[in-house]
């Protein structure tokens, strides 16, 4: 039964990768990457049970945490173009340029 869930998750991950590859706009790609990450968390959890060693869940928890940080870093990267303190007017000019 775990195998069925694992395969379903693998298929879902492939579909997410399709969107990651095809996604016209950048934000589609970020969304696909984020959902790919969440599915991997579930895959690692299910694989832990599949191999009968459920104490691998730390990795799943770690990955859920990192997936969140990665997404936030990507968004800040595009919004303010620097992961440090960005000056407000620089960000404003970028929106004008990004939306033409």
């Amino acid at each position, binding site marked *: 039964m775990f195998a069925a869930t694992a395969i379903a998750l693998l298929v879902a991950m492939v579909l997410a990768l399709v969107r990651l590859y095809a996604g016209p706009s950048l934000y589609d790609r970020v969304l696909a990457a984020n959902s790919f990450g969440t599915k991997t968390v579930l895959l690692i959890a299910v694989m832990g049970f599949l*191999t*009968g060693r459920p*104490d691998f869940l730390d990795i799943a928890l770690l990955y859920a945490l990192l997936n969140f940080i990665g997404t936030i870093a990507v968004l800040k990267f595009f919004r303010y173009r620097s992961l440090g303190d960005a000056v407000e007017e620089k960000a404003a000019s970028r929106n004008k340029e990004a939306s033409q």
Partner: protein
Amino acid sequence: MEFKDAFGLFNYWIVIVLMMTGLYIVVSRGNLVKKIVGLNIFQTSVFLLYISMGKVTGGTAPILTGKPEVFSNPLPHVLILTAIVVGIATTALGLALVVRIKNAYNSIEEDEIQKLDLAAENEVDEPGARP
């Protein structure tokens, strides 16, 4: 080499393909950031080579659970934990160098940097433009 035999090595062959892809990216691409990503792939696939040599079919992770079980070999895991740290250290240093090169040359393409160096060299034989 009947199929069962070849199948046993299939794992290593794919790891070798990964290694060569990483090496190819490093050797052929001119972009400095791309080279570092290639280096990362090359090193990660070497880690996979080490770990797949330590795996025992039917064995579990080398964490004692009281029950007598077949364990996979713990030694490659220890070596690779150190090698991962070496990999991330090299990546951090390489990226810091890329940022400094961008500040100095205003480009991160190897060909442009070489052009700038040659231009600076035969312009006049001064020791090199200040950054």
